[in-house]
């Protein structure tokens, strides 16, 4: 299940970056150590057959590059506009993941994105991290889920 979830999230991220940002050169690797001086963490809650959340960790430089690429405008700092755009991208990736999971009869729903502070202390049954590297910067996805009882 961990490997399957890892792949589904990586594929969804790849798909969204390709369609929205025209970026296809993406690589991924599992990671336990993702540290950036400045980052935006966006949590997407998951409910249904799987319950928990996925934290999308966007370094500031990646966030700014993504929004610049989408808008064609210059952005100097992460502000509420950038955070909102990045949150929507996390929402879109998660929506793609739900569609892929439903094809395997895993039925889940997502909650609206929330900016959060990454907290590594919670215990989860299913836990994995993807470090995704792209030509406009890296991101990390922390997947933390329990099976519904």
């Amino acid at each position, binding site marked *: 299940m961990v490997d399957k979830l890892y792949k589904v999230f990586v594929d969804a991220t790849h*798909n969204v970056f390709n*369609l929205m940002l*025209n970026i296809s050169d993406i690589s991924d690797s599992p990671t336990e150590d993702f540290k950036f001086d400045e980052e935006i963490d966006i949590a997407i809650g998951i409910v249904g057959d799987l319950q928990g959340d996925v934290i999308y960790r966007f370094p500031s430089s990646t966030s700014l590059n993504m*929004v610049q690429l989408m808008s064609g405008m210059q952005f100097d700092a992460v502000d509420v506009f950038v955070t*909102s755009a990045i949150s*929507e991208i996390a929402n*879109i990736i998660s929506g793609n993941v739900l569609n892929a999971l439903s094809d395997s009869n895993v039925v889940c729903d997502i909650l609206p994105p929330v900016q959060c502070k990454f907290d590594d202390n919670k215990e989860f049954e299913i836990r994995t991290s993807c470090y995704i590297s792209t030509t406009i910067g890296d991101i990390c996805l922390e997947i933390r889920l329990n099976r519904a009882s």
Partner: protein
Amino acid sequence: MLWKDQYELGVPVIDAQHKELFRRVESFLQVLRSKDGWEAKVSKLNETLEFMKRYVVEHFRDEEQYQLSINYPGYEAHKQLHTGMVEYVLEVSKQYEQADDKEQLMQQFGGRLLAWLINHVAAEDQRIADYAIKSGVNGNGR
């Protein structure tokens, strides 16, 4: 420029509406992100918000009619996406009338609108075009 030729579906009426939508959103973002003070921006932003309320509904209706005309199997799911966006625009519009910090609300709206619109046209709407081509529906300009 916000619009990219790769977003074209090959359905003239829908493509024309998408281009108009992108043109308006781009103009909205340029005003929203300008260094001008709020007072200088507010009339243009109000105008765009009013446009979005009207035009988005009109465009979604036309796009849904096209989907029905080609028996697009994803019609119901796509319609739900439209409904969700219309509800969001109306909710923001309502909050805007009451908000103390209107600029903050508009910046938040602008960021989400940008990402939503690009994904919707580049990904969701492309599925309609892919279906039309695959099923050989006449009237698709490709």
